[in-house]
C-alpha cells in the first residue's frame, strides 16, 4: 500500500493555473477550506471551479482573483447569511464566468467522466432557459423516444475534498453526508484529500473513497473551518458573518484576505 502523505503546500503547488478544480462539501459543510486558503496564498489564477452548491470557498476564490469560471448549481450562504457577495460582484463585473448548472447536471457531467463517455443524458430541464443559455445540446434517443438533454463530461483536473479520517494511503472515511465528494474523486485526474486526522487503519466498510483513487493526503485538523465538519465542529457563524461583511466591497475583501490569509502571521 502506497504512502500518499504530503504537505498542504506541496499538494496545492501541483495544481497548475487554469486547472479545473472540483471542491467537495456543500454550502457551509465539510468544505476543504484549508486547501482553499492555501490556493489563495499560492496565488493561483484562472481556476475553473466545479461544485454543486458552494459558498465561502467559491466566494473567497472569486474575491482573491483565483477563479475564472464557476460551474455550479447554487452559490450562496443559505438562510443565515444570504448571497455570496464576492461571487456576485465578480460575475456582475465580468471577471468570473457563471457557468450555471442544475446541481443534477454537475452530477451528470461528473458521471460521464467517471463512466468514460462523452456525455450523460439527463432527465428534466424542460421549460428551462438553461440549456440554451449554457449550450447544453439535446440528443435523440436512438430507440425512438423523445430527445433528452446531454450534459458534457466534467473531468476535473483536481478534486479537493476534506474528510474526517484517512489512513496514510488515503483510504478516506466520510462521517455524515457524502455530498458529491465520491463522484468528484472518481471523475478527477488527481485527487487531494485533506483530513482531520490520519489513523492507522479504517474498516473497509467505512471507506467512502479508496486510497488508490487518491494522489495526495494532507493531515489538516480543522481543515473545513470556518465551515462545519460533521462530528467534529459546527460552522463558525461569526467568522462567516465577518467574511460576508468584509466582502460587501472589493476593498473590504482584499483587506480581509491580506490580514487573514496573506500576512506572515496568518500562515498556519
Amino acid at each position, binding site marked *: 500500500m502506497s504512502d500518499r502523505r504530503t504537505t498542504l503546500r506541496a499538494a496545492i503547488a501541483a495544481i497548475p493555473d487554469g486547472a479545473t478544480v472540483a471542491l467537495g462539501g456543500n454550502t457551509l459543510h465539510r468544505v476543504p477550506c484549508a486547501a482553499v486558503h492555501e490556493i489563495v496564498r499560492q496565488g493561483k489564477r484562472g481556476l475553473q471551479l466545479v461544485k454543486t452548491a458552494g459558498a465561502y470557498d467559491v466566494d473567497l476564490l472569486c474575491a482573491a482573483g483565483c477563479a475564472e469560471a464557476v460551474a455550479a448549481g447554487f452559490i450562496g450562504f*443559505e438562510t443565515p447569511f444570504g448571497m455570496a457577495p464576492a461571487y456576485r460582484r465578480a460575475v456582475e463585473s465580468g471577471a468570473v464566468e457563471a457557468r450555471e448548472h442544475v*446541481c443534477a447536471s454537475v*452530477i451528470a457531467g461528473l458521471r460521464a467522466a467517471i463512466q468514460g463517455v462523452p456525455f450523460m443524458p439527463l432527465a428534466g430541464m424542460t421549460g428551462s432557459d438553461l440549456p440554451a443559455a449554457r449550450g447544453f445540446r439535446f440528443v435523440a434517443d436512438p430507440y425512438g423516444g423523445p430527445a433528452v438533454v446531454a450534459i458534457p463530461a466534467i473531468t476535473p483536473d483536481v478534486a479537493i475534498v476534506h474528510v474526517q479520517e484517512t489512513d496514510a494511503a488515503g483510504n478516506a472515511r466520510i462521517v455524515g453526508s457524502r455530498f458529491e465528494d465520491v463522484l468528484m474523486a472518481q471523475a478527477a485526474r488527481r485527487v487531494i484529500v485533506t483530513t482531520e486526522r490520519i489513523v492507522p487503519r479504517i474498516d473497509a466498510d467505512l471507506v467512502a473513497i479508496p486510497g488508490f483513487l487518491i494522489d495526495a493526503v494532507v493531515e489538516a485538523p480543522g481543515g473545513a473551518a470556518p465551515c462545519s465538519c460533521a462530528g467534529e465542529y459546527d460552522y463558525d457563524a461569526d467568522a462567516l458573518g465577518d467574511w460576508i461583511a468584509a466582502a460587501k466591497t472589493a476593498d473590504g475583501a482584499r483587506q480581509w484576505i491580506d490580514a487573514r490569509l496573506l500576512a506572515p502571521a496568518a500562515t498556519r
Partner: protein
Amino acid sequence: MSAAERGAPEQMAVAIARALRDGETVFHGVASPLPMVATLLAKRAHAPNLVYLSIAGGVDAEPERLPRSTVDPALLHGARAMVTLADLFDLSARGRLDVAFLSGVQIDGTGRINMSAIGPFARPKVRLPGGAGSALLMPTARRTMLWRTRHDRRVFVETLDFVTAAGNVDRVVTPLCVFRREAGRLAVDSIHPGVTPEQIVAATGFPVEVGPETPLTEPPTADELALLRAIDPERVVASEFAGG
C-alpha cells in the same frame, strides 16, 4: 408589526404541512427552513409514513435541534438510512419523488421561477445564487411546492428575467396567501387571516382573481402550534423573515 411577528411563519408552515399527504416522499434542498419545519410538522401531525428526504442525505431524520442551514449534519440525527444528492435527483428523475420544495427570486403567473439572474444571463445586473436542483426537480417531481417569505411585485412578476425552471407546480405559499395552479395559471386558493384581497392584488405583478368570496386559510390550530413549538422551540421557522 412584521410578518414574522404577525405569525406568518407559522401560518405558512401549517399551510405547507397540510398539503403533504401520508406516505409521500418529500424533499427539500439548501436554504429551506420553512419546508424543513413544515415537513417535520406534517410527519408528526397527520403523515407518520411520509418519507422525509433532505439534501443532507438523511432519510426520516428526527433532528434534536433544527439548524438554520438546511444542509447541516443536524439533519442526519435519527435518520433510518442515508442517500446522496445524486440518489435524490435520480429518484425524482424516474418519477418516484412525490413532493419537491423549491423557491424563486422571481415567480411568474404560471409558476415558473428565476433563480439565475436579473438582467441578461451572460452579464447580469444581479447575479442570483442559481436554481440548485430546480430545473431537474420541477419537471420530474410529481408535485412542486414553491414557498417564498416575501410577497411583492419584485417577486411575483409578469415576466421573468430568465426561466431557471418550470414544471409541476402545485402550490405556492406566501405570507399573504396560498396559490394553486389551475389550468396552468396561479390562482389564489386561500387568503391568510388578516390579509385583504386588495393587499394581494397590490403585491402581485400578474393578474389574480381574489375577493371576499376567496376562502380563508385555516389558521394554525392550537395542536399545530403546540407541535410547532415542540419541533422548533427556537423558531427557526421564522429565520427566512427579516428579523427572523
